Structures are given as C-alpha cells and as structure tokens.
C-alpha cells in the first residue's frame, strides 16, 4: 500500500466510484419485525445467524442486566417476563389500554406513555422498540459491510401523530438516521409496483398482528398515489388470539388469570390459530381442561373483527368515490391475511381473487428497502414518486369546545394550510391554541396533540386581531404548528409532541363514533353556538352600557336591560338551547332602542342598518 501519492497538477488520479450508500428498510411490526436491503431494484430480507428472517418483536430484560431480543426471548422460562406487542403502546396513554397484556404497566410520571415493569425496572415502549431496531440495524451493518447511512421505517397508515412521533423517537434512540417514515400499505405497493409491475387502482388490505390498514392507491409509471386510507390502529391477529383465550377461559369456567398464566394461554391460542389455517379442528388443553376448537367456532369468534375491517374498506371506497368494480386488484399484506376466513371475506367483498404473490410477512420490509435505496441517493428508481396522505383530520379548538378541521383526512402530504382566527374579548393579549386530531366535532372526543400560547398580541377590540395559524405536515406525516398575529407580527410556533393531558379514547372509536353520533354532535354544536352568540351579545351590551348606559337610558330602562341580562346569564351554562335562544332574542329586542339612541349620537350615518352586536365589536 502506498504511504502517499504524488499527483501532478492537472493529472488527477481516476476517481474511485462513489461508495454505494448503505440503507435499510425496516418493518417494525407488532408481533414480528424484519429488515431488508435493496440493490438495483431488487430487495431481500436479511436473516440472523441461524437463517431466520422474521424477528419476533419480543424483548426480555433479564435479571443479569442483559437484554435479549427475539426468538430467545420467546423461549422457556424467560417467556413470562418478556415484552411483546410493545407497538400497541406506542404513543398511547394508559387509559387507551383496555385489554389484558401478559405484563404489567405503570402510569408514566407526566401522564405520557405507560411504562412496562421489568426485572431491570420500568421501561418505556419507545425503549423496547429501540432494542428491536438495534438488532435489525446490526443485521444491516453486517450485510452491507459498514455503518448505515439511513433507514426507512414503516408505520401503519392509520398511525396518528403521537404514534408516528414515538416511532421516530425509538429510531433516534437506536441511533438510526430516519430517511422517511413510510406507511406500511404504501411500502407494500412499492414492492408490488417494482417487482410485479402492478398498475391500476389497487386496494392494499393489510392485517398485521396489532393493526389493520386499508389503502386505496393509484399506481402508474412509478407514481404511487394514495387516494384514501382507513383502518384501525388497534385491531390485528393479536385480537384473534385474545378471542381464543377468552373462549378457553369461558369453556374452562375460569374468570380471571394472572399475567404469566395469560401469556401461556396466548401461546396456546396462537398455535391453535395457526393449526386452524390448514385443519378443520384442533384439540386444546390447559391446566386439566381440554376441548375441541373447530373452525366453525373459531370463525364465530373472529367474524365480528373481520367484518370491522370490511367496513373500513367500504368507507375508503366511499371516501375516494369509487365502486368495487373500479378496483383493478386487491393485495394482501400482513401475516393475519394467511387466515382462510380473512381471504374468503376479502374475496367475497371485492369480488376477485386477492393477490399475495409476494410473501405477506416480508412485502412491507421489501418495499421499505426499495424506497430507502432511492432516498439515500443510490440512483436506481430515482424517478419514483410516493404520494401519501394523512389518515385523520388535523384541527384546532374553537369557542365552545368545538374542533375546527384545518387539514381534512386523506389530504396529500406534505401540506401547509393556514386559517385566520380573531380575539374574542376586548384587550385580549394571549391566545391559547389547542391542536387536535380526529373526526368528531367536540374537542373532548378528539385526540389532544399539543397546547401552546401566542402571547404579546397588542390590546385591541374583540375581533380586530388577525391570528394566522399554520399547519405544516411533512412527508413523514409529522405536524408543525405556528401562529402569528398579522397586524403586529408577533410569532409563536411549536413542533407537535404527543400530550396525554386529556381524556383519551381509542382512535378507531373516535372515527366510528364520529358517524354514529353525528346527530348528537349536531345538537351539541347548535347549543354551543347559541351559547357563544349569547355571550357575545352580553359582552357587547356590557361594554355599551358602561360607556353610554347612564347617559342614554332612564333608571327603569337600565334596570330592565340588566334584568334581562341576568336571566340570560343564568341559563347560559345550561343545556336548553331553545331557552338560551329565546332569551338572547328577548335581550336583543329590549336593547334595540338603546342601540338606536347610541346611533343618534352622531354616528347614525356611519352605522345605518347595522345591529347592536356589531357596535360592540
């Protein structure tokens, strides 16, 4: 090897070809995870030293301070203390976890994600996910022969802001540079698009261990456009297992079991589920009880859940304004689509044979690897374009506890949307902003993402300030919110981080409730509007009375107006919208004369034709 080289001016050495960048695609799954690499448009998953590609998403925190990930953690005596399905806890509060887990949780000190109790003390779901990512990244380093330049990590399309943010945090914790958070169905579409040259209007039906996604996409000449997406971030094969466990307990007439026993039951259930993929029945035994689980029984246990997924499919078709006939192909993704019941139902619903030519367990990782190779700057496929959408509407809290949508669901990202708001009170210098995600009309039914304040608004009369609130969602689906008062230029901004301050509900419940309770929302909305209107009248009149009341009104008239105001105030916080409306109108009638007299004081010309409520502003 030469110790140094001498280069003559103008006679430079032929340059070595640029080093190929090293990038991996990672499918961080609820039950299994995978890593893949791509070269020249061909992707392959990476095995461990024993040739196993799937890494069970299980982490064991041992007494001797070692951390074991994957297969070994699922073995023998360590099983009971192993953490599985941590993905379900990502970005969720403890109130969201309304099902039994094979381990114990404790609430986080600041009310964030719950912590999981282990032999090494409490750990957060983000840490658990980071351990899995580290093992997968190490496979990549070994296969590619050096440190990674970046990774694409997939998330369910239906993941909301806190869940995406938590995934990003886990990657950072694992020391990975995230090139992109990619939706799992989109990743699967990339794999099919590049490998089998699939084109047309495609439905990706992705039923994994813990999540369900359905994306309706248009594939054409390297462009992958998501038209609509839907799903359930807490529905998957895990729930099939749980249904079998519940059945066993019912049959064995046992009411409740401890976490370690539950974990044994889950394993029995999972095995039964796999046997039923090929057989008509399976004999189960547990602690002296034994019974026959037939396919027919099993189907009654899971049919409700499978139907849920089909409902989401219908909604997505409707959101995109398409009929089943308009679909070119349906692609099956996720291990749970191996279930013959799921296949039958999907076939029946879409009236065609679904595609599964690429292994449904690895297709997401393969697609992620293909995209990672492009993003990191290796040439192949550089004209590929992925157009993703946000799965759930983003909005802001407005007067009366209502959610005003700023970016509706299924909007293509990246996106920037702004809306102007104004102050409600005279002299108001602070505006509180509450950032929300969800489809329901009431703030309490949406997920609270962040709260921040815009301070230093110059004092003005109510309604004069112009506060422009901008929402920017990047290609990863992560949100940044900023606010600015336009007349003064006061600026404030925030990158949304998960907050768990408010009452939390499951994301699916939010969407389902959204339609089921549309009527209730409408009534409540109407009540809130009436309340706000009444309050505006009261405040306007109060200001006017302070200024001109004594000069323009007799004592009697003043008293009558005040009496009317008092009775309105009394019912204001009630729920009788009609009564509030009636008293508001009464107050309006009684104050017309006062308004007229104010106008007579030399401002008549300017205000001709206006009503009292505008004078107050």
């Amino acid at each position, binding site marked *: 090897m030469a110790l140094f080289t001498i280069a003559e001016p103008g006679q430079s050495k032929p340059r070595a070809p640029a080093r190929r960048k090293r990038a991996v695609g990672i499918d961080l799954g609820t039950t299994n995870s995978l890593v893949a690499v791509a070269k020249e448009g061909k992707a392959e998953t990476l095995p461990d030293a024993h040739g196993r590609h799937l890494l069970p998403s299980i982490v064991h925190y041992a007494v001797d301070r070692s951390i074991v990930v994957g297969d070994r953690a699922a073995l023998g005596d360590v099983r009971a203390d192993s953490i599985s399905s941590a993905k379900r806890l990502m970005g969720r509060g403890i109130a969201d976890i309304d099902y039994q887990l094979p381990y114990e949780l404790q609430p986080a000190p600041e009310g964030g994600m719950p912590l999981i109790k282990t032999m090494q003390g409490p750990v957060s779901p983000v840490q658990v996910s980071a351990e899995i990512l580290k093992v997968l990244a190490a496979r990549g380093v070994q296969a590619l022969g050096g440190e990674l330049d970046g990774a694409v990590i997939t998330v369910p399309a239906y993941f909301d802001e806190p869940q995406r943010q938590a995934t990003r945090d886990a990657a950072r914790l694992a020391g990975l540079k995230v*090139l992109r958070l990619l939706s799992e169905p989109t990743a699967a579409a990339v794999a099919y698009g590049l490998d089998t040259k699939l084109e047309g209007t495609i439905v990706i039906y992705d039923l994994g261990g813990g999540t369900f996604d359905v994306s309706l996409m248009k594939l054409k000449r390297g*462009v992958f456009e998501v038209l609509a997406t839907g799903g359930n971030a807490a529905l998957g094969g895990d729930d099939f297992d749980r249904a079998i466990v519940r059945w066993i307990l019912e049959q064995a007439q046992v009411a409740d079991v401890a976490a370690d026993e539950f974990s044994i039951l889950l394993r029995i259930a999972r095995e039964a589920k796999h046997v039923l993929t090929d057989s008509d029945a399976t004999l189960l035994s547990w602690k002296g009880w034994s019974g026959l689980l037939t396919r027919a029984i099993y189907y009654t246990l899971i049919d409700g859940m499978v139907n849920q997924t089909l409902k989401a499919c219908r909604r997505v078709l409707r959101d995109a304004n398409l009929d089943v006939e308009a679909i070119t192909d349906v692609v099956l993704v996720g291990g749970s689509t191996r279930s013959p019941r799921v296949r039958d139902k999907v076939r029946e619903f879409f009236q065609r044979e679904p595609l599964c030519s690429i292994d449904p367990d690895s297709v997401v990782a393969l697609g992620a690897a293909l995209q990672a190779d492009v993003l990191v700057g290796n040439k192949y496929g550089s004209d590929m*374009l992925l157009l993703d959408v946000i799965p759930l509407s983003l909005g802001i809290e407005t007067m009366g506890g209502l959610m005003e949508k700023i970016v509706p669901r299924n*909007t*293509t990202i*990246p996106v*920037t*949307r702004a809306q102007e708001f104004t102050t409600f009170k005279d002299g108001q210098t602070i505006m509180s902003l509450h950032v929300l995600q969800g489809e329901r009309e009431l703030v309490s039914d949406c997920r609270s993402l962040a709260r921040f304040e815009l301070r230093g608004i110059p004092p003005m009369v109510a309604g004069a300030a112009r506060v422009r609130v901008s929402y920017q969602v*990047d290609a990863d689906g992560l949100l940044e919110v900023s606010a600015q008062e336009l007349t003064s230029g006061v600026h404030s901004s925030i990158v949304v981080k998960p907050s768990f301050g408010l009452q939390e509900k499951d994301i699916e419940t939010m969407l389902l409730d959204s339609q089921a309770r*549309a009527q209730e929302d409408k009534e409540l909305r109407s009540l809130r509007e009436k309340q706000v209107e009444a309050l505006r009248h009261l405040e306007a009149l109060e200001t006017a009375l302070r200024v001109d009341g004594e000069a323009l009104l007799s004592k009697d008239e003043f008293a009558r107006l005040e009496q009317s105001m008092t009775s309105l105030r009394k019912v204001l916080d009630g729920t009788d919208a009609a009564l509030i409306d009636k008293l508001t109108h009464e107050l309006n009638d009684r104050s017309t004369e006062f308004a007229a007299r104010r106008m007579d004081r030399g401002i008549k010309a300017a205000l001709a034709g206006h009503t009292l409520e505008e004078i107050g502003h």
Partner: protein
Amino acid sequence: MTTSQVPNFFELLDLPESCAVDEAVLERNYQRLQTQWHPDRFAAAEPAQRLAAVQQASLLNDAYSTLKTPLRRAEYLLQINGVDAHKGDNKMLQDGAFLMAQLQQREELEDMLASRNERGLKELRKQTREEQDEIWREFSEGCEAGRFGVALHAFHKLQFLHKLGYEIVAAEDKLLDEE
C-alpha cells in the same frame, strides 16, 4: 394580502386559466413537478433545502387539489377574478324553485335514513352528482363569458348540492355503522 405572494395555480401547473381543466394534463404536469420537488428528492440534503422542498411540494399539492376538485376550482376562479364567494349578497334565497327542490331532496334523505334505504341513498348520491354536473355547466358558461354574477349564483347552488352530497355520505356512514 397573501394572494400576491402565492403564484397563480394555473400558471404553476402550466395550464390555461379556465373552468374546464383537462384532468389528464393536470395530473401529468402535477406529477412531473412533484417528482422534481417532493421532499423524498431531498432526503439527504441540507435542512434549508429540505424545508424549501417541503414548501414547494405543499404548494403543488394545494394547487393540484384546488384545480382538481370542481367546487374548489370554482371558488378559486371567482377569487382570482376579484369575486369573494363568501362576501356580499347571496341571492340564493330568492331562487324559490331551487330551494324547494333542495327541501324536497332533504326530506327524501331523512326518509331514506329512517327506512334504512341504502340503495335509495346511493341513487340520491348519484342524482345529486348529476345535478352538480348540470349546474357546473351554468357556472362555466357564466365564468367564460365574464358574467361573474351568474357564475357566483351557480357557485352558491353548487355549495348547496355539495353539502347535500356530504349529508348523504354521512347518512350512508350511519347505516354502515349500525349494521
């Protein structure tokens, strides 16, 4: 105030400013530009460059969805011709025939919801879409002839129908959830 900073969406997407938009050309131009500007092109670039890409890609997405969706395109056309669709007199309330038809359709919607008539709702949705197409022609004619009063009136009708369409979808959703 901010309109002066935002480029004209038609120019941005290299299309003639008109009510009629060739969807295939719109899509092709959008995809060509987006391929150039999408943040994925800049995954390994400097933060400032990445931010610029996000902004440009967002603008393209906004322009594309505005021009692709007829109602939003209509509103945008009025806006760039100096007509604020949300200000001024709404003559809608004087169009008795249209309002009567609207009321009737809404009653039908209520009945169908009550009798769980899923097929009827789908039919009503289709019918509303056809009606929208017809009024869209009114809008186009007004707009192309520079008669923005006529166009605005048609726009308000379109809004009504759009809202009706939305309510039909909500009713369909409701039946779906109650299954």
